[in-house]
C-alpha cells in the first residue's frame, strides 16, 4: 500500500493541534484535516487556560515540548495564581487569553512544523484494512492513505444544540457537526454514550456598567504557563465580578418550562462542576446570589464572557435574566448561551496509548473520549499524536503512569474506569499530588521527551542549564550551615540544641523561606527563582515525598507486570463469568490496571497472574 502520510489528524481543536505537533516532532509526515483553517486553535468556551489540575497538565505538555503553554503565554492578558497562600503543590497559575491572539499564535506555531500539512476538508469515513486503520475518506470522495489516524472531533459527533425549545445539529455555534463519523464508530461496534455541556451568553462589553463592579486585578509577579516563557507579552487587564440576585433567581424559577434541562428536552449528563445557572438556582437557590466573573475575550474585542451563568434557557429570557444583574442592566447579548449534546466514545475502548482496541492504528483524543477542557484535550492529543507516530515505525510505545504525571492519572482513569460525566482534572484525583507539582514537571518529564526525540534543541539546552543550576544550588544549600545560637541572632526560631542546620534543613521549617535567609547568606539571592521554588518545595514536603516514593516503588511493581496482549481469558481457570466478561472486554494492560478495574476482586487478579506466570514458564521451557 502506498501511504500519502504517516499520520492524519482529524480536527483542529486543542487535542488536534497538540496531536499534530507531537506527531510532527517525532518526525512523522503529518496531515491535519479541519472543516475550516481559520478555526484552528479556537477557544470554543471560556477565554482562559490553567487553574487547579489543568495548569499541571499544561506544564506537563509543555515539559514534553508541546504547544499549549507557549501559545497561552503569548495570548495571556491576565495572569493570576490560584491558592497563592497554600503550599506549592496546589498553587496553580491561570491566564485569561485573548481569543484572536491565541488562534493566531497556534496557527503560526503549527505552520513552523515543516512536516505538517493542513487541509481544509471534511472526513466522512475511515479506511480500514484487516482491522487496521489506513486512512480517511474525505467529502469530495478523495481517499487519503496514512499509517495512523488520530480523531479529535470534540463535541462535533452528532452535536445537537439547544436554546430554549429550539434545537439544531451543530458542532459548535456556526460550525457543522460530524454526522458521518458517529455512524462509522457504531458500525465497528464501539460503545457510544451521550454527554451534555453548555456555554453562557456572550455580552457586549460596551454596554456593561463597569464602574459599579468589583475589580479583579492581575498578579504583579506572574507565573508563566510555559517553562520557556520569561516575560509578559501582552498588555495586562482586569476582570470584574458581579452576582445574581433574588430577581434573577425568580426569573429562572418561573421559566423552567423554557429550560431544556428541566423540560425533559435534554436527558444526557452534564458536568457537576460546571452546572448551568438553572441548575445552581434550582439546587442552591436559597443562597445570597451566585458570583459571575466578567472576563474580556480579548484586547481589541468588546466581547465579554460571563463565567458562571452557562445557560440554555430561551433566548428572550436570557436577556431578561442577564439584565436583572448588577452592572448588566442595559447589557446587549451578542450571542445567546446554549447547551450542546454530543456523542462520545466510551474511553474503555482505548489502550493507555489512546489507540482503540478494536481498530489498530486508530487513535482518539479530547472531548470525543468524554473529557472536557482545553488542557485535558491537549494532554491527550500529545499522547495520541506521539504514539500514532511511534506506531508508524514500530518503536516502544510512550505511556505515562499515575506516578509520572497528571497526564498519566487522567488517561488511566479514563481507560480503566470510563466516565459518567464529562471528565475534568482535579488535583484531588492525583494520589501522588505532593510529588506531581507544576514546579517540577520539567524534572519529571523533559528527559523522557528528550530520550523519545520530541524535545527540540532550544528546550533541551534550557532544561540542561536548569539542571546544572539546581545541582549547584543544592550544593550551596546543603553546605551552608549555621548554629542555632547564631540563627537566633537573626531572629530564626529553632530548637537551641547546639546542632548545626544547613540551609536545606532551615527551609524545611514551615515558617522559614529562602528569602528569610538572604541577610545571613547574600549569595542565596543569586539562585534563580524557578530553581529556588523547586528546592523549597522539595524541602517542605521532604517527609511526604519519601513516603510517596516508597508507595510509588510498589505501585510501579504492579504496573510492570504486563498482561500479554494475546491472552485468552477463557483459558484462565476459575474466573466468574462476570469477571471473565469484564477482563475480556477491557483487556487490561498491566496487573496494576487490572486491580483498579471495577468489579475485580483479588482472587481474579491472582488467578490471572498465576496463569501468566505458568505460561511464561512453559514458553521458557520450550525455548
Amino acid at each position: 500500500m502506498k501511504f500519502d502520510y504517516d499520520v492524519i489528524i482529524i480536527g483542529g481543536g486543542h487535542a488536534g493541534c497538540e496531536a499534530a505537533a507531537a506527531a510532527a516532532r517525532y518526525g512523522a509526515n503529518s496531515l491535519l484535516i479541519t472543516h475550516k483553517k481559520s478555526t484552528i486553535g479556537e477557544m470554543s468556551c471560556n477565554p482562559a487556560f490553567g487553574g487547579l489540575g489543568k495548569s499541571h497538565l499544561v506544564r506537563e505538555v509543555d515539559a514534553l515540548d508541546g504547544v499549549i503553554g507557549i501559545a497561552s503565554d503569548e495570548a495571556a492578558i491576565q495572569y493570576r495564581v490560584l491558592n497563592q497562600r497554600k503550599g506549592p503543590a496546589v498553587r496553580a497559575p491561570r491566564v485569561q487569553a485573548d481569543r484572536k491572539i491565541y488562534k493566531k499564535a497556534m496557527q503560526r506555531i503549527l505552520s513552523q512544523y515543516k512536516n505538517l500539512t493542513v487541509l481544509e476538508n471534511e472526513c466522512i469515513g475511515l479506511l480500514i484494512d484487516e482491522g487496521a486503520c489506513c486512512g480517511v475518506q474525505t467529502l469530495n470522495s478523495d481517499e487519503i492513505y496514512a499509517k495512523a489516524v488520530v480523531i479529535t472531533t470534540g463535541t462535533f459527533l452528532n452535536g445537537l444544540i439547544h436554546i430554549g425549545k429550539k434545537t439544531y445539529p451543530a458542532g459548535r455555534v456556526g460550525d457543522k457537526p460530524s454526522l458521518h463519523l458517529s455512524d462509522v464508530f457504531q458500525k465497528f461496534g464501539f460503545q457510544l454514550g451521550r454527554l451534555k455541556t453548555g456555554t453562557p451568553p456572550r455580552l457586549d462589553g460596551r454596554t456593561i456598567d463597569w464602574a459599579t463592579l468589583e475589580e479583579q486585578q492581575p498578579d504583579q509577579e506572574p507565573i508563566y504557563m510555559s517553562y520557556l516563557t520569561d516575560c509578559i507579552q501582552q498588555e495586562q487587564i482586569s476582570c470584574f465580578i458581579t452576582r445574581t440576585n433574588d430577581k434573577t433567581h425568580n426569573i429562572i424559577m418561573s421559566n423552567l418550562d423554557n429550560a431544556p434541562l428541566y423540560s425533559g428536552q435534554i436527558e444526557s449528563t452534564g458536568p457537576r462542576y460546571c452546572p448551568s445557572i438553572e441548575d445552581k438556582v434550582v439546587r442552591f437557590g436559597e443562597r445570597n446570589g451566585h458570583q459571575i466573573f466578567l472576563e474580556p475575550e480579548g484586547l481589541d474585542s468588546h466581547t465579554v464572557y460571563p463565567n458562571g451563568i452557562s445557560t440554555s434557557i430561551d433566548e428572550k429570557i436570557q436577556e431578561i435574566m442577564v439584565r436583572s444583574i448588577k452592572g448588566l442592566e442595559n447589557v446587549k447579548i451578542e450571542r445567546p448561551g446554549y447547551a450542546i449534546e454530543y456523542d462520545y466514545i466510551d474511553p474503555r475502548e482505548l489502550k493507555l496509548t489512546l489507540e482503540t482496541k478494536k481498530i489498530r492504528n486508530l487513535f482518539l483524543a479530547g472531548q470525543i473520549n468524554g473529557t472536557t477542557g482545553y488542557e485535558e484535550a491537549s494532554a491527550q492529543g500529545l499522547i495520541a499524536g506521539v504514539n500514532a507516530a511511534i506506531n508508524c515505525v514500530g518503536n516502544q510505545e510512550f505511556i505515562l503512569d499515575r506516578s509520572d504525571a497528571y497526564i498519566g492519572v487522567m488517561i488511566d482513569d479514563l481507560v480503566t474506569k470510563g466516565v459518567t460525566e464529562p471528565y475534568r482534572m482535579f488535583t484531588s484525583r492525583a494520589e501522588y499530588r505532593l510529588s506531581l507539582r507544576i514546579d517540577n514537571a520539567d524534572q519529571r518529564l523533559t528527559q523522557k521527551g528528550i530520550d523519545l526525540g520530541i524535545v527540540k534543541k532550544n528546550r533541551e539546552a534550557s532544561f540542561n542549564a536548569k539542571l546544572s543550576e539546581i545541582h549547584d544550588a543544592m550544593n550551596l544549600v546543603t553546605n551552608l550551615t549555621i548554629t542555632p545560637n547564631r540563627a537566633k541572632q537573626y531572629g530564626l526560631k529553632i530548637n537551641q540544641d547546639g546542632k548545626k542546620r544547613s540551609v536545606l534543613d532551615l527551609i524545611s521549617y514551615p515558617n522559614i523561606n529562602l528569602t528569610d535567609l538572604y541577610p545571613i547568606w547574600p549569595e542565596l539571592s543569586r539562585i534563580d527563582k524557578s530553581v529556588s521554588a523547586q528546592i523549597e518545595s522539595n524541602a517542605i514536603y521532604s517527609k511526604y515525598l519519601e513516603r510517596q516514593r516508597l508507595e510509588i516503588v510498589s505501585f510501579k511493581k504492579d504496573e510492570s507486570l504486563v498482561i500479554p496482549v494475546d491472552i485468552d481469558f477463557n483459558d484462565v481457570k476459575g474466573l466468574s463469568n462476570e469477571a471473565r466478561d469484564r477482563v475480556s472486554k477491557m483487556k487490561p494492560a498491566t496487573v496494576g490496571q487490572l486491580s483498579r478495574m471495577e468489579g475485580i476482586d483479588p482472587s481474579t487478579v491472582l488467578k490471572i497472574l498465576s496463569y501468566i506466570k505458568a505460561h511464561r514458564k512453559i514458553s521458557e521451557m520450550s525455548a
Partner: protein
Amino acid sequence: MYNTINSKTIYALSSAPGKSGIAVIRVSGPEAKKIGNLFNIDLPDPKKVQIAKLVHPHNGDFIDKALITFFKSPNSFTGENMVELSIHGGKAIKDLIFSILAAEENFSYAEPGEFTRRAFLNGKLDLVEVEGLADLINAETEFQRKQAFDQMEGKLSNLYTKWKGQLVKNLSYLEATIDFVEEEISPEIAGSQIKDIRVVLSELDAHLNDSNKGERLRDGFHIIIAGSPNTGKSSLLNHLSNRDIAIVSDEAGTTRDSLDAYLDINGFPVIITDTAGIRKAKTEVENIGVKKSQTKMKEADLVLWLMDSSINKNDGIPHNIKDKSIEVWTKSDISIHENKDIIISTKKDQGITQLIDIIGKFVEKGCRTEGSFITRSRHRDALEKTKNHLSMIAKNDLLDVEVIVEELRSAVNSLARITGHVDVEDLLDIIFKDFCIGK
C-alpha cells in the same frame, strides 16, 4: 482494594491464636532488620537461632525472653528479609509487641495471605503451591474483611462507620478548599474540619485505651460461682482447681485471691471465683460480703448459679444477670430431683466434664464476639495508624492544607482497611452535593 505494599514491612502472629505456650511473630520486608534496634537486641547470623531479651523501646522495660531467627533475603519464605520472634504465648506480651510494631510508620499488620502473596510474587513458590493460593486469598481478603466487618459487634461497626463517614466528609471539604478556590467556599470551613478531626481523634484515642475490649482475652474470661449459702460453691471451685485443666502460675509476685482458680479451657484463659452465699444478711459484716458478691456477679462474663438438688428449693437467678447465667444443680449423689439439665456431684465427680463443655462454649462465644484474635490485631494496627496520622494534624497548627489532606487521606485509607475502600469519586460526590461549584 488489592495493592502490594512491598515497600511496607509486614508482621503477624504465625502461630495459632489464643493462649499458647510459645507464640511466633513473623516480620518480613525491607525494614525487618529494624527489629534489632527496636527491641535493643543483636540479630543472629542468617538462619542461626539466638536467645535475646526484648526491651521496650520507650521505657526500657523488659518485655520477654525470646528466640530470634533471621532469614536474609532472598533465602527466606517470602524472599525478603525476615525475622521470627518466638516469644512466650501470653496475650499481654503479644499485644505489647504488636503495639510497638504498629507505631512504626512503615510497618503494617499483614493482610491475610500477604506473606504467601509476597512469596509468590518473588518467585519463591512453585505452581502447585500457587494453585491453592487464589482460593486462599479469595476467602481471606476483601470478602473476609467485609464479612468480618458485617459480623462485628453492632456498636463497634457503627462506631467505625461513623468515624469513616466523618473523616471522608472532612477530607472532601478540605479538598474542596484546594480544588475549588474560586467558588466562594468560606475560609472558616478548613478550621471547622480540623475541629471535627480533633473530636474523632479523642474518641479514637479513648477507644484504643479502653481496656474492656481486650481485657477479656488478656486477663481471662471471668466466671463467678454464686448461689445461696451451702449450695456447694467452694466444693466446685476446689474440684475444678484440682483437675488437670488448672493452671499453676509461674509468675512471681502475682497477687491472687485465694478463692480464684485459673483454668485453660479450649485454649482461652478462664478465671473462676467463688463468692459469699447470697441471702438476706443477718449481720452487717455478712451484708458487706453479699454486696460484694452482687458487684462481682455484675462484672462477671458468666455466672454459675448453684442450687442444691438435695432440698426442694429453687432460688431463681437474680433478674439482672439472667442472660449470662447457667443454672447448675449440685449434689446429684443425694438429689431428690430428676431431669435437671445440668446436674453435678463434686463428691462422685459426676457431670463435671459436661459442665466444663458447656462453660467452654460460653467462653468461646464470649471471646469470639469481638472477632478472632488476628482480626483484632489487624484492626488495632489500622486504628493506631489512623490515630497517628490524625495526631500529626492535631498537634501541628502550621501545616499547609495540602499536607493536612495528605495525612487525612492516609488516616482514611488506614481506617478503610476495616471499613472498606474510599474512592476519589466518593469525595467528589460530597463536594458537588454540599457546595455550589461552577465558576
